[in-house]
């Protein structure tokens, strides 16, 4: 692979979507000890597009919420290719509230083309589920670290993205709309997705420059093990620094992190 500066925005989009790219489940497996998965939103059902549970990060109890699209075709069908339904976001919020009660930091892994798009998802309030997460996560009193590991697709990604520190893997992307969607709406031509990807400024380097994310984990010339290990160290150090803050300081810094963006 070329050096990081020479990769085009659309090449990064493709890297972020690559079926070989590890998603949330991989990072849980390689980063969290004694992980126990918890299921269900206690309202409607369990959404396999989001894995939630508890475990140890370097001997520290944490709650982990991770988007996962699966590896085999069967698993991908079951996990809806990683596109969460309302019950997935509600499960995530339930587990975050539990983390708050037991004073555990929360780690969110984001990698999805977006919230699940379907009749049932609308029936069960896809918009309301995301809205509720944005609202409640602004008030969760323990540190939240969000890591974009794949495609950070719009509101469906942001629903796990209200955090104290946002980290992106270098070749992940984070955007308000897919380049294909943007190209087809603006230029009536989805084949102009590479131009749209460029225009949307959706790479980790763009978002770092905008102050939307705080950290980039370098990927070029690194193995998946090295990337995972760098990411683990970054998360540990972020949790360590956020835990030194009082609840009030933490929430006010979280508010300001988003308050300063735009106009």
């Amino acid at each position, binding site marked *: 692979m070329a050096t990081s500066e020479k990769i085009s925005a659309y090449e990064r989009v493709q890297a972020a979507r690559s079926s070989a790219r590890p998603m949330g489940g991989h990072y849980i497996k390689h980063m969290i000890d004694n992980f126990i998965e918890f299921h269900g939103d206690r309202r409607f059902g369990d959404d396999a597009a989001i894995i939630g549970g508890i475990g140890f990060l370097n001997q520290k109890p944490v709650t982990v919420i991770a988007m996962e699209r699966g590896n085999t075709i069967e698993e991908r069908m079951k996990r809806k290719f990683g596109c969460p339904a309302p019950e997935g976001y509600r499960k995530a919020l339930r587990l975050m509230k539990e983390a708050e009660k037991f004073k555990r930091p929360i780690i969110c892994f984001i990698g999805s083309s977006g919230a699940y798009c379907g009749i049932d*998802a609308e029936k069960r309030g896809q918009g309301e589920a995301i809205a509720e997460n944005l609202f409640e996560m602004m008030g969760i009193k323990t540190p939240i670290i969000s890591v974009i590991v794949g495609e950070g697709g719009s509101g469906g990604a*942001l629903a796990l993205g209200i955090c104290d520190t946002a980290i992106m893997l270098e070749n992940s992307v*984070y955007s*308000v709309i897919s380049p294909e969607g943007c190209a087809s709406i603006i230029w009536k031509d989805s084949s102009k997705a590479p131009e749209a990807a460029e*225009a949307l*400024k959706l790479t980790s380097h763009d978002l770092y420059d905008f102050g939307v994310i705080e950290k980039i984990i370098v990927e070029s010339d690194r193995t998946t093990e090295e990337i995972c290990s760098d990411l683990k160290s970054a998360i540990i150090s972020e949790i360590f620094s956020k835990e030194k803050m009082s609840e009030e300081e933490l929430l006010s810094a979280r508010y300001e992190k988003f308050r300063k963006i735009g*106009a």
Partner: protein
Amino acid sequence: MKGIFDFLKIGADKTEVLCKKCGKETSRAKLEENYMICPECGAYLRMGAYERLEMITDKDTFEESDKDLKGGDPINFPGYDKKLDEARKNSGLPEGVVCGTAEIGGIKCALFVMDSKFMMGSMGSAVGEKITRLFENATKQKLPVVGFTTSGGARMQEGIFSLMQMAKVSGAVKRHSDGGNLYITVLTDPTTGGVTASFAMQGDIIIAEPGALIGFAGARVIEQTTGEKLPAGFQRSEFLLEHGFVDIIEERRRLKYTIANILAIHKK
């Protein structure tokens, strides 16, 4: 965007309008008298922000805030500056939301009213900033907030800045709520995408106008992606009421009365 009424076919003087739904003509004056509802078939015309404010607030009580606040072109998106100029010219508005304070039934509140004439009420940085400031001021002054939503969703020409407005506004709504203050949202046609997935659905009380399109994903996108046939009335107010996502569907002519009543019941 002229909603369901076709002004252009009738002539530039705009005194007569044609309802696209029933195809009948009506006079502009008659339409205004009738709360911008077609007197022939009962269809709801999309309302501009100032028309809405006139309908909802007590006479001469509205004080506008951040009237001239505009957003920039944060990601230098091709053609966006031109598009903004056009939107301003065509709508006569600097941005897609009007904010301020007013009295409704004698009770002071903070209001925001989105306007679909401005780039389909899409959420750019200026829209997010204006609504955030409104909530921050309402929190300080302990005022209830009444918000009218209409939006096609994100303003994609602002990229990640558009997406982050959902987070920014949500933070301000949360603080307002934590202060024990009331937030009423009125969902009007259409309320979709990122606005539905943030402040439209964060009200303590959620009211919808009859027949309004309200949803997260676009109906056509759902049909194309899943191949499923959409049920009748999909993503309309009545569908959301049935599935438990709005408190009340209220007729336009009764909206002011109902909002005033809710404000009175919550008066401290």
